[in-house]
């Protein structure tokens, strides 16, 4: 069963002077364990799509089912709780809590979940090791480079034990090397832990390495290709 299920989803922003048709009927299924990249030019609707998949926004029409739950059935506060337990987030930039250390940032979501201290400690170590930052555990995030911060963000996204992880242009602010490292980490997490990733990019280096590519143009899916693993 698909963990992400979009049917005829439309999103119209009508806050401005002219309504903006950001998504025009998108249907999409993501299976557990998939490594999916959403590509498309700027303004094609990638962020809008990921916000819907992340339960951060609601569609104007159509249905969004996440992990078997219809988004429309969840109240505002139920949605917060749903995100806490089901979804991990990595954003484009600046998305860690600056007053916390790397370790505390990863621990934070588990604290919100009310998990016991032992579990938290163990998970934090494991995840920071997985993203290669065990040495930087007790550093304030402001002392870390952009690439390192994104790796902490990946660790935090996984800490809650989510069904899938969303990353909106995670490499956009990174240089080639840091972007490569981040992709390697996400790939190996996908391989080893079967973590489902959906991320957006307009970076061609990233697209080459994706197994499934969903291309958006003007709010429509223009291409959806799955490559056989090499």
């Amino acid at each position, binding site marked *: 069963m698909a963990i992400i299920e979009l049917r005829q989803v439309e999103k119209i922003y009508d806050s401005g002077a002219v309504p903006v048709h950001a998504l025009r009927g998108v249907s999409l299924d993501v299976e557990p364990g998939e490594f999916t990249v959403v590509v498309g030019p700027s303004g094609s609707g990638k962020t809008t799509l990921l916000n819907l998949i992340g339960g951060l926004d609601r569609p104007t029409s159509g249905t969004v089912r996440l992990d078997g739950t219809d988004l429309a059935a969840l109240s505002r506060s139920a949605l917060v*709780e749903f995100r806490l337990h089901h979804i991990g987030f990595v954003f484009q930039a600046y998305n860690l*809590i600056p007053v916390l250390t790397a370790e505390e940032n990863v621990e934070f979501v588990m604290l919100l979940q009310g998990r016991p201290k032992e579990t938290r400690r163990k998970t934090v170590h494991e995840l920071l090791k997985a993203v290669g930052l065990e040495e930087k555990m007790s550093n304030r995030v402001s002392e870390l480079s952009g690439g390192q911060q994104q790796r902490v963000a990946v660790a935090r996204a996984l800490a809650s034990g989510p069904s899938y992880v969303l990353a909106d242009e995670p490499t956009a602010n990174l240089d080639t090397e840091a972007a490569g490292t981040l992709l390697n980490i996400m790939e190996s997490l996908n391989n080893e832990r079967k973590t489902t990733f959906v991320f957006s990019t307009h970076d061609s280096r990233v697209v080459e390495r994706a197994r499934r590519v969903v291309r958006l143009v003007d709010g429509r899916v223009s291409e959806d290709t799955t490559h056989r693993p090499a």
Partner: protein
Amino acid sequence: MLFQIAWRNVLRNKKRSLIIIAAITCGLWAGLVASSVTLGFSYETVKSALETRLSHIQIHQRDFSESHALRDTIPGGIALIERIRRLQGIRAVSGRLLAEGMASTAETATGILIAGIDSDEERRVTTIGQALIEGTYATGSKRHACVIGEELAEKLAARVGSKIVVTTQDIRGNLVGGSFRVAGIFRTDSTPFDGSNVFVNRREIARLLGMEDRIHEIAILLDNAGQLESSASDIRRLAPGPKTETWTELAPELRYISEYTEVYLNLFLYVIVFALLFGIMNTMLMSVLDRIREFGVLTAVGMKGRKIFTMIMLESVILSALGAIVGMVAGWGTVEHLKRTGINLATFGEGLRQWGYAEISYPILPLSMFEQVIVSIVVAAVIGAVYPAWKAIRLDPAMALRTY
């Protein structure tokens, strides 16, 4: 965890935090110092009036307060003094014989109030004995001695040792007079009092007036001023005939001073805290608006609005509490210092003494004032943070996180 994050957020923008902390500190410091100075001043004024003349409770014959007639003495007054002395909680009792008259020297003559006292009794009730600037208070030690105020001495151009002639009417209405030698000169907080009162030996003046063993007034000092009402009713039970009045009945204006000072000071503190509330609100609002993205991230990863709200409240309370603590410590320190030095209002002294206000006072900082400051500043911190916190939790995460 929330507290820890809130604490770090307070430390995050040090300049902004310091500014609001300094504002709260200054406001509360000024409020506390001004309040305790005012409280001390009002306390000293009341105390001085009680100590120089009024005492805690007075007894008169029923008609005396209206008539001020010589004949309206307290029946069995001298014996009553002894009986009251034996009651519980009574520190001292003094019987006074009162008459109006004229005092004259070679220079001039002026109207006076003559109080015939037993100086051993009276010095335990009032502090005029301690307010002597010259001579002695013991009117009984020498024959025909009197004690007068500085103001009267100046009017009469009299010094210790000078003779003054006192003229009055005796109980039968005859004009009588006697010459008294000034044994001592006192100075209280009230120039009108010092300009009109002459203390003489009770037995001597009684003989002059033909009123042996009669008194008009019994002044009573209690061990504990808080026992005022219960002691008054004890005395009323003991002596139902004459009129027993507490100082609050005798001098309602003094009661208003002590009661309304407190009300006024509370109001004063609340006004300060109310003004600070807007400072707190402004600081919290700036802090929230600076962190819109961060609140977007927090909501996105699953932090509930209630927790975010609490976190912002905590930040506000921490900021305000820091300001309050520093302000209270500074206020306390200043008050302690002023307690040691005393506050001398002598520059306005003459004016103040005209009205019977104390010249030197000592600030009073009751614990209840700290309690009020803490409670009201925490309330202000919470109220001040409500709007900013509400703004933070109302954020649409998708909007807050958007990077164009």
